């Protein structure tokens, strides 16, 4: 006699579980088919939109705007704006303006506003990108609520769009957020600020003296990305800051001879990270009297300090490769000599390729 019958609890449990699994599988299969059919349909519609609008956009870009601009059907809104944004993103100057005009005639602004208000994330992003490329300050109020969205992508692109619309007005709104929102990638923030130009840079520089902590560090990184220079007084104050991270940030920005005395003093700092960046800075703005200082750093206990000191020596305009080779031969410290020869070889390779 078999111990387990069809009525045994575990058998029943297994039967129900297996049946439920197969039923769910059939549902999934139906969902996959539905998604595939829907995707195919959407792809066909998008293809039709592209075929209709690409020639019109091309004519607008070539400064030959079409006489007649058709209406964009509601179901084609997304495909239309995707194509328009994709083209706009690679254009500059009058070509871009031509595309904007065709877009406005096709009511791209109204379509974008509807998508922005619609609530769906992907469509809201598309709406923001469209409004940004349209560069129209009339859309300011529609964009503003999304600047503080918890969604970092939506909020940072809204900031970008507002900068495109009116950089002066955007500066005071965007700069504090750029400093506070650690979820906004720095690389993207720098790109937005580069686009915004002087108004944003000025707004950041105005706030700089009052900044502390994480906001100050972030500001210094942004300024480095923008290749900006600090006012001399402020720069020296930052080079004396008790935070090593702030000192490093300030060293990375040093580009003028005015801060040389402070940088020279930092070349013998107890923290090796400071010495690394001091060496690097001396390579940028150093004078002939800094050669001995850098040579001394070639004997530093930290590999990175030796590396940057060797790089700095190689980049000083008044030292030629023969001078450095002679220096390498004269060095007592074999690690320093090896590092200098390594940097010379890297530089020689660059010369061969030039």
């Amino acid at each position, binding site marked *: 006699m078999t111990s387990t019958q069809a009525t045994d609890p575990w058998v029943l449990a297994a039967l129900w579980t297996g049946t439920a699994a197969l039923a769910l599988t059939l549902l*999934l299969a139906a969902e996959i088919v539905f998604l595939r059919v829907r995707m195919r349909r959407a792809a066909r519609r998008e293809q039709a939109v592209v075929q209709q609008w690409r020639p019109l956009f091309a004519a607008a870009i070539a400064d030959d705007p079409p006489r007649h601009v058709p209406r964009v059907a509601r179901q084609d809104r997304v495909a239309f704006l995707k194509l328009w944004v994709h083209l706009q993103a690679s254009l500059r100057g009058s070509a871009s303006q031509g595309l904007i005009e065709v877009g406005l005639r096709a009511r791209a602004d109204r379509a974008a506003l509807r998508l922005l208000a619609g609530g769906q994330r992907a469509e809201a992003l598309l709406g923001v990108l469209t409004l940004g490329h349209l560069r129209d300050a009339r859309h300011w109020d529609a964009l503003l609520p999304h600047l503080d969205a918890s969604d970092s992508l939506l909020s940072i692109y809204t900031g970008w769009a507002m900068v495109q619309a009116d950089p002066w007005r955007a500066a005071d709104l965007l700069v504090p957020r750029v400093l506070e929102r650690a979820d906004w990638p720095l690389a993207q923030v*720098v790109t937005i600020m580069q686009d915004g130009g002087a108004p944003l840079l000025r707004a950041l520089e105005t706030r700089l003296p009052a900044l502390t902590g994480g906001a100050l560090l972030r500001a210094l990184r942004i300024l480095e990305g923008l290749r900006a220079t600090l006012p001399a007084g402020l720069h020296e104050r930052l080079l004396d800051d008790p935070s090593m991270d702030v000192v490093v940030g300030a060293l990375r920005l040093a580009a003028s001879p005015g801060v040389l005395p402070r940088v020279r003093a930092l070349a013998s700092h107890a923290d090796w990270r400071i010495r690394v960046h001091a060496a690097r800075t001396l390579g940028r703005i150093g004078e002939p009297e800094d050669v001995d200082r850098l040579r001394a750093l070639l004997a530093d206990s930290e590999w990175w300090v030796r590396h940057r000191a060797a790089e700095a020596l190689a980049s000083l305009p008044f030292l030629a490769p023969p001078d450095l080779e002679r220096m390498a031969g004269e060095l007592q410290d074999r690690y320093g000599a090896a590092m200098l020869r390594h940097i010379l070889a890297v530089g020689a390779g660059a010369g061969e390729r030039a």
Partner: protein
Amino acid sequence: MNWHPNWHLILVDFIAWFVIGYFVVLNLSYLTLNLISIVALRRRAQEKLLDDLPQIYSGLEPPISVLVPAYNEEATIAASVRSMLQLSYSAYEVIVINDGSADRTIDVLIEEFSLLPYPEAYRVQVPCQPVKQIYRSTRYPNLRVIDKANGGKADALNAGINAARFPLFCGVDADSILQRDSLQRVVRPFLRDPTVIATGGTVRIANGCKVQGGFLTEVGLPRNTWALYQVVEYLRAFLFGRLGWSALNGMLIVSGAFGIFRKDAVVQAGGYLPRTIGEDMELVVRMHRLMRQSRQPYRIEFVPDPICWTEAPEDRATLRNQRIRWQRGLGESITNNWGLMFGPNGGVPGYLAFPFFVLFEWLGPLVELGGYVFMVVAFIFGWVSVQALGAFLLVAVGLGILLSASGLLLEEISFHIYPRGSQLLRLGAIVILENFGYRQLNSWWRLVGLYQWARQKEAQWGTMKRQGSWQTRHPEDKP
């Protein structure tokens, strides 16, 4: 002592409940990961629009050192390196590490890339076998080659880490096929979150695809059945296995085929462990353990985009060796880092992910195969009815099909890289068929791997029989 007259029936009941319960818990766990992945994938799909826009570099993107360990790759290394030099990223270097190849790998590299020896100030941060020479390319400024004594893949990666100039490094298999924007995509988590210490990307099966100039030009499905099974397997493993765990910060593997790490975090952890089979997983598990012990905030994330393609074994023997090796690697990773299991401040890795891997991945083959064997034996001895056997098989196979189907659904929601209906039909057929033999065979191989790990048998990598012709020089390749 009097035994219960029906002790054997009670035992059968107990084992049956245990096995059924195991299958149900295992598959429910995977389904939970699936649900988490759906949310993550939908968010990622919403951002696809941004991928189509021209990339603008601000100069603040972290530069990356791409490390390519190579052993006996003379036939393919030139094409691989050439494709890596064409990656689209703001700043990166390529370091090929010739790990004591017995063939002409180093000679090929020297000839193809005009290498010259140069006096690099090589810094040993992680121990490795002696470096014989370091070369730089006179034609490609961002290419260097390290020639060293053989020490295995982990050792080669350590040598590359020592020479890497940049704060992030990317370990890439020499035969991996990347996409031009692979680095751009897999670096994104580092840009968003400074606590990220490692990211991994999805690895897809390259069999059946068209490759030109080292890059994938057309996606296709393999004709070979073994490879087809692996397509579905990889969908399951990456699209909800790793993505689900990543959302919980419990991802224990970053694929050795393609992954980015913060160099200082890896050096702090001691680098890759030499002479391990699963060096990729072992390092990540160790990083979890050490970061949790030191209570430093960190994340290890997964990028679901298909950014790395690899050739899958197309014959049974090679596939068998691979699966045995993977199971052994899993065993090493787990036993070397046992302290993570329910450890202090263990979090998701210690209290969820690690126990999951121990119970369902490492010891899983024992229960899965044991369950099948037990039920068949019990049926033969008349301890279970045919209905009971059928019910068990319905659960085991039914849940397996459900899991595979959900992997296919995730692919359809997200990247749908197989656009043709015929491809979908073939994948659908495999979703069903793999549960009638292939999965059970895999479990058997994994059991063999578990046994070999237990016996500490000498690991054999074996030689993969490569079918892909994309690695030979294409007429349109630049010299």
